[in-house]
């Protein structure tokens, strides 16, 4: 198992390099002189000279890439001009908040989605199935930012169950309880789309598995139907559900951008949008590379989970 994890980690290196190349190339599409593009309104002559020296922006594209890559590998993601602090510091500060939000949403959508899919399959064409299918359809069709706004309107403004926005109360202590209070609505709003997608997939995966001969064997043994569904069938269905969970994690991370804006959550997504609007290119570049790298590592974790679940995968 250890060697398998190592192997997967090594295989991530070319992917990470590829990601850095892609981000670099996209950023190189910016028209005009790179130094002025990066500095924007801060493009004083001495600033231009300094950034050209630090990032080698007056050098050819390939050389620029390697300077940039080298800097990043030593933990130097450049400096944000709009915030006047190192990019990495800002990203790390923000990333924690995003992880709390996206992580909670991911756990929610995994559990709810799989459960809904299993119930739906077990009661195929029954009332529960139809109800779930209908809710799921709305879930995957509603824009998460609109859903978030409606939740604020209903549950925060009218019913006053939850605070309107933010991560912490403006006054008072930062307790776990106050965090949860702020977290529930955005996490739910963020989880809805992925829950729908996972529920659909889990349903069809379960239907596929329930037709297999080994399910009949379990029934022939006298295993209780509950256990047939939730143990035998679900275990086998998870083999095709897990990779989709990995993909959906990317969608949850993506959706977090909208939800962070709607709920004023101090995460990476909001930082990126602000950075784009203030044309803080280095902050965008650093944030994108950092989050993408984390996502790649997360997917390795998914692969490892998959190999633990399925003994047929050679590790």
């Amino acid at each position, binding site marked *: 198992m250890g060697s398998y994890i190592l192997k997967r980690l090594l295989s991530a290196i070319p992917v990470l390099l590829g990601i850095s190349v892609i981000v670099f190339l996209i950023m190189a599409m910016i028209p005009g002189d790179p130094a002025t593009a990066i500095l924007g309104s801060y493009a004083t002559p001495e600033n231009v000279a300094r950034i050209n020296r630090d990032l080698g922006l007056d050098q050819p594209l390939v050389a620029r890439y390697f300077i940039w890559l080298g800097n990043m590998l030593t933990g130097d993601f450049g400096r944000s001009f709009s915030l006047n602090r190192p990019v990495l510091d800002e990203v790390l500060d923000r990333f924690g908040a995003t992880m709390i939000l996206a992580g909670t949403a991911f756990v929610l959508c995994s559990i709810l989605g799989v459960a809904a899919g299993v119930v739906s399959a077990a009661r195929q064409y029954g009332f529960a199935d139809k109800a779930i299918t209908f809710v799921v359809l709305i879930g995957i069709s509603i*824009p998460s*930012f609109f859903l978030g706004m409606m939740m604020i*309107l209903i549950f925060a403004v009218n019913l006053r169950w939850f605070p309107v926005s933010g991560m912490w109360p403006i006054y008072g202590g930062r307790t776990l309880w106050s965090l949860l209070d702020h977290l529930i609505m955005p996490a739910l709003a963020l989880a809805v789309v992925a829950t729908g997608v996972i529920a659909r997939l889990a349903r069809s995966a379960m239907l596929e598995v329930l037709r297999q001969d080994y399910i*009949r064997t379990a029934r022939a043994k006298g295993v209780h139907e509950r256990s047939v569904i939730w143990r035998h069938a679900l*275990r086998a269905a998870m083999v095709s559900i897990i990779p989709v969970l990995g993909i959906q994690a990317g969608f949850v991370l993506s959706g977090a*951008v909208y939800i962070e804006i709607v709920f004023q959550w101090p995460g990476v997504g909001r930082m990126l949008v602000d950075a*784009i609007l203030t044309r803080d290119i280095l902050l965008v570049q650093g944030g994108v590379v950092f989050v993408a790298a984390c996502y790649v590592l997360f997917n390795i974790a998914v692969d490892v989970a998959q190999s633990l679940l399925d003994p047929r995968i050679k590790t």
Partner: protein
Amino acid sequence: MRDFLRLLARNQLALAGLIVLSAVVLLALVTPLLPLQAPNVTNTGDRFLPPFTEGHLLGTDHLGRDLFSRLMYGTRLSLAVGFAAAVIAAVLGAAIGILAGYYGGRTDNVIMRGVDMLMAFPYILLALAIVAALGPGLLNALVAVAAVNIPFFARNIRGITVGIAHKEFVDAARLSGMGDMRIMLGEVLPNVIPVIVIAMSTTVGWMILETAGLSFLGLGSQPPVADLGSMLGEARSALITNPHTSVVPGVMILIIVMAINLLGDGIRDALDPRLRSGALTRPMAATTVRRDGPVPEAREGALLDIRELQTQFHVKKRVYRAVGGVDLEVKPGECLGLIGESGSGKSVTALSVMGLVASPPGVITGGRVDYKGTDLIGARYEQLRTLRGREIAYIFQDPLATLHPLYKVGDQLIEAMTAHGRAPKEGARQKAIELLKSVRIPNAEKRIDSYPHEMSGGMRQRAGIAMALANDPEVIIADEPTTALDVTVQAQILSLLDDLRRSRGLAIIFITHDFGVVAQLCDRVAVMYAGRIVEEGPTAEVLATPAHPYTKRLIACVPELGEGRRKLAAIPGLPPPVDDLPPGCAFAPRCAKATPACTEPPIELMPFAGTRAVRCIHPENDAAAREAAE
């Protein structure tokens, strides 16, 4: 195409989606012709008028602009951008996918590596990076959304192209000197179009959402022009005071995307042949029972008594009478062979006993299965479950498919015991090892921790037998347990079953298509044809003097008893389809002795030579059999 449209029309939800979407698209198309107010003219005196105000059907926004007009123009813009993004992504993605799949090798490798890299991003990071580089704006947002979707199309279409690139018609085109370009456009492209359509129908709604999202973030359409997303974005600051300005564009996006998703599901179902056959229904915990007629009485002396059993498959309007009134019985310690070609209904008969026929489509429509005075067909699920495996256990064919691939063999064995509360927690593992030993699995202490795929076919089958024995059942129903095995292993398994039967006093129903196997193991044999028993009697007598012409043919097919696998191909013709049985004798079309009387119903199972029975009006070996009986 016609079929496709008909299928789509039959799907009411998809049809509803189509109608709603068409209406929205139509409205969007004619928007400039409608007598609407100018969407971008501000009138600060009329800010935030509520809906249904005179002159403003949906009210006005924060700059006093008519919301209805803005909604119509916004919808127009959102649809245009979303569809444009979908088309661009589909065209470029398909081009890349076809190139990669067609050329294969190096080209394929390089392209697909790039695609994988792009897919390693959470899509919005890529979109944000592109917008960051190009600057905010609707066109740039469109480019970004299209770009992040290209890899998805490329990968899907490459997969299909690889399959097509090596088909004969492509080779033929190549040999005839056609250029690569012409082959790709003329031969490959038409074949991947359905995949492109499916991929588009499943992503276009999503792309509309994404462009709306970028606009919502302020990165898409710029004021004063607004698509639905930027309308929502602008309305957000007034969410609490004037929610209608948010609700109007939000609900519109929901309606559009929902309609597209409904339609997309319909298209996918119509184009995906696997779903079309309705194959994706899951069997329920027990076979559906719908008995109309009276329930027959059980006979004396039998342990398991099957009476007039009828099991059907209801597929759409068709009714397949897989089992058309079967009578069978086994006594304690007896081995009954049930023999017939595949499709004769022998497996369905066996599975009906414990309600294991897949349902839907299976329905038990009549008869009784009596076990020790209990009618299993009418039994409640919970009662049936406690009998399954504990009193009547099954051994199935092909244990690679019938054992759970993800659980260790030992755990599956232990579960067989714990399902009936038969195993003390600690002793379970020991008991499982003993069971494995009892079916002569060498090295049982180790084997118990193996997964099914780590065992040989013979070992797996032994494990399957061990599982059936776990609860010391009274009856074992073995459904072709040796078919997938080679001759030596088959012989070992048969002798194992024979030993077990003698040492444990098991009653066995042994299902096979092989008379050789029956001869080795069974006391009595019943021959099934087209859902009915056509002959029954003691094995030795039936073998020596088969009475039914079909039995005689079956036996003639066996070159030498107990010699490996045989097919029954030597009988000319095919069994009749069980949804369209001929009146009278089902075997008549293949029978050399058939007379006009044979096609007149009904032909009953008649007593024959004392202990035997046959469903034939001109039985074979009549005199010889009677003589032997006396």
